[in-house]
């Protein structure tokens, strides 16, 4: 019967991780065999030959103790060093990464693209471009795991985490939830499709959307009534959001925060946590329970777009047509 013994390696880090894994395996195999062989030799050579033999005691040897403490530790330091190097290199996405957003929800993965395309349990990425996935959870802890890419990151409710990869080989690969999350944990699986860049552009264009994420966010901004207080060009009861994203915001308590994704998310769900200096704290209601994590990401995309230009412009791929891929019953593998 045909079955794999080694996972496919389809990302830029996969080979690094494999090399380290092979190194660890070889060192462990040598250590294990050394111990096994020594025990086997001793067990045979020093087997009891007469029932009353009493061997002479050997109390120990400081030299040996030091040797077999230091040498293994030095070997382990090479594990540590190599592993830490890979971990650090992979901790921060390259600045030119393309953005994708993944929301874990019992028991599916909801994927959004900046162009507004949405999918469930399917992720499409191009070959050769770093992809930064911002992960969020609607409920419990999940874990975003693509074995062929050797990447995994827990998806923790209440915050954003980031992982990244560069796919190197077209194909279809497993996407798993790796953190136990309830009844259909093992059903929270999907596929990652890696495509050549040209095919990917075609795919993006073909997926009809209701506008870019930022445009979807803008519509939400109107529907939820945000715009009555957060006016764009004149001072309302709440701060003007134009140019806020990425800036330093002075708070009522004197502290300063950077207006990043996490800060904007918190301000939507818990507006009184960090009130901007000069504004009252009890004006804005919480939107906890009224917006999904996906919608929060769209609102953030909108606020982000306000930081770039004075009028929201539509990037390529925006097609305000039927939202084809948004049905929640879509594509469970």
């Amino acid at each position, binding site marked *: 019967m045909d*079955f*794999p*013994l*080694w*996972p496919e390696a389809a990302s830029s880090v996969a080979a690094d*991780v494999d090399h*380290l894994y092979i190194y*660890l395996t070889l060192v*462990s195999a040598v250590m*294990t065999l050394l*111990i096994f062989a020594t*025990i086997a030799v*001793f*067990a045979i050579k*020093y*087997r*009891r*030959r007469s029932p009353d*033999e*009493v*061997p*002479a*005691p*050997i*109390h120990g*040897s400081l030299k*040996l103790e030091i040797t*077999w403490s230091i040498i*293994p*530790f030095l070997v*382990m330091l090479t*594990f*540590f060093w*190599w*592993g830490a190097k*890979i*971990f650090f290199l992979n*901790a921060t996405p390259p600045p030119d990464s393309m953005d994708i957003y993944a929301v874990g929800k019992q028991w599916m993965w909801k994927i959004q693209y900046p162009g507004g395309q949405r999918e469930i349990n399917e992720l499409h990425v191009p070959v050769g471009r770093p992809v930064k996935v911002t992960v969020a959870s609607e409920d*419990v*802890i999940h*874990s975003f795991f693509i*074995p*062929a890419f*050797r*990447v*995994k*990151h*827990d998806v*923790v*409710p*209440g915050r954003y985490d980031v992982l990244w990869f560069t796919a190197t080989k077209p194909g279809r690969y*497993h996407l*798993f939830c*790796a953190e*136990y*999350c*309830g*009844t259909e*944990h*093992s059903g929270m699986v999907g596929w990652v499709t890696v495509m050549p860049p040209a095919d990917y552009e075609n795919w993006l264009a073909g997926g009809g959307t209701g506008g870019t994420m930022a445009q979807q966010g803008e519509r939400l901004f109107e529907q939820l009534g945000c715009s009555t207080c957060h006016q764009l060009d004149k001072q309302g009861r709440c701060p003007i959001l134009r140019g806020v994203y990425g800036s330093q915001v002075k708070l009522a308590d004197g502290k300063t925060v950077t207006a990043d994704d996490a800060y904007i998310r918190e301000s939507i769900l818990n507006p009184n946590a960090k009130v901007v200096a000069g504004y009252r704290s009890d004006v804005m209601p919480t939107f906890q329970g009224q917006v999904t994590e996906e919608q929060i990401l769209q609102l953030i995309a909108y606020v982000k777009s306000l930081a770039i230009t004075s009028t929201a412009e539509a990037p390529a791929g925006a097609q305000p047509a039927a939202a084809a891929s948004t049905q929640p019953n879509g594509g469970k593998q």
Partner: protein
Amino acid sequence: MSTALEQPRAQETPNYLNAEYGWKSWLFTTDHKRIAVLYLISISVMFMLGGIFAMLIRLELLTPQGDLVNSDTYNKIFTMHGVVMIFFFLIPSIPATLGNFLLPIMIGAKDLAFPRINLLSWYIYIVGGLFALGAVVMGGVDTGWTFYTPFSTTYSNTFVITAASGAFVAGFSSILTGLNFIVTVHKMRAPGMTWGRLPLFVWANYATGLIQVLGTPVVAITLALVGLERAFHIGIFDPAIGGDPILFQHMFWFYSHPAVYIMILPGMGVISELVTCFSRKGVFGYPFIAGSSLGIAIIGFLVWGHHMFVTGMSTYAGLYFSLLTMLVAVPSAIKVFNWTATMFRGSISYETPMLYAFGFIGLFTIGGLTGLFLGTLGTDVHLTDTYFVVAHFHYVMVGGMVVAYMGGLHFWWPKITGKMYPDGWGKFSALLVFAGFNLTFFPQFITGYLGQPRRYHAYAPEFQVLNVMSTAGASVLALGFAIPVIYLLWSLKSGPPAGNNPWGAKGLEWEIQSPPTTFNFDQTPIVTEEAYAYAKHQEEHVG
């Protein structure tokens, strides 16, 4: 075991088993040996229960589809397997049975320092066990033994509080056992039994006691907070009500990683006894084996974060925890090397307990080394939460701890019962355990690297062949554990008398009769030599 308490035989010499009769004499006993027997029966029941859950897991995973039971049931089965095996078998296993029985005798004492607290700890254990069984009977619990939040506090619709109460209560039993051991070792040693002469089994249980006393309260607090959040929606762990789910993991692993050492240290203590006895030779590097137990106990408290490398913790925290994890492996390596060196120029014989000791050294070495794959940051990202982790900790917990427990049980069974079991059957089942274990768990290293996540009810079809191997191995393993139950029970009635020292072993427990009398020693022994003084075996103690 029950046959032992119903056989009044006039011709038998008085011992702790026939000193009194009737159920009251057992349920109200303060004799550490009888309490050890009570524990032995209780944890055996729990081990069988946990084993049945394990077999159900393996049967379900025979095919990639989730077809034997539904997902909810499967989730409950693996949760109860973990809860029962960890809190009700592995943690109490060696300390509460062999430790309870032997620790006072090994240091020349009549009993533990607090005999009634010892009995209390058993009752607490039983109450905890009833909570756990209650959770099963009422409908089960599906959080995994790790009770991760906010799933356990907000989303699970099962009997989380009942099961967590079981673990919470059982923790106090563990604390009391640890406390009792620490005080006993400090205060009850016979004249001449200096710290440098303590058998290594005593050192190991002493170090275990330290972890039990210092670590267990933290898991008790953590589980209590889970109960509070679940029952009263106090925002501690669930971010929707202002909590932090990662806080739970820090608190949980602050106990549960040291708990791994609660489970393995006593097993290491057993192996030190077995290797010396069946090499008929003093131990190589006594201070290093004894000291490494303390080293493990201390450094073991500083590595918990290696369970959380992919939770988004700071990369610098990741560095720290990875480095400390490498450090905690050193004392374990020291032990393995010293056991091996003890065999050098020994007089090695191959009775059943020694086969288990060989098995332990081999399997624990693999378990320990694969732990380094998980402590290494670059590989852990891919391996964590896959079957690689499952394989790793079963190599340590089953290949290490359970194998050591089986070895210890076969070693001291003649002392505990006064009866001998058939050594041939013992060897046969030891080999079955070794073969079945490797067939079960070695393939899981491969499925883990392939990426099969743990706790999956249904899995991708390409993993099936390796899973079928696992299930086949589990059947052999089950047989390897079932056969000893039969011949050990048989030996109670029909086994030949063991004599006081069937193995020619050193140590105070082998100088008294089998089974021992209620107060162990007719007069307090005076110790004049180091542990494992095999070369001086003509000299003797007062006994």
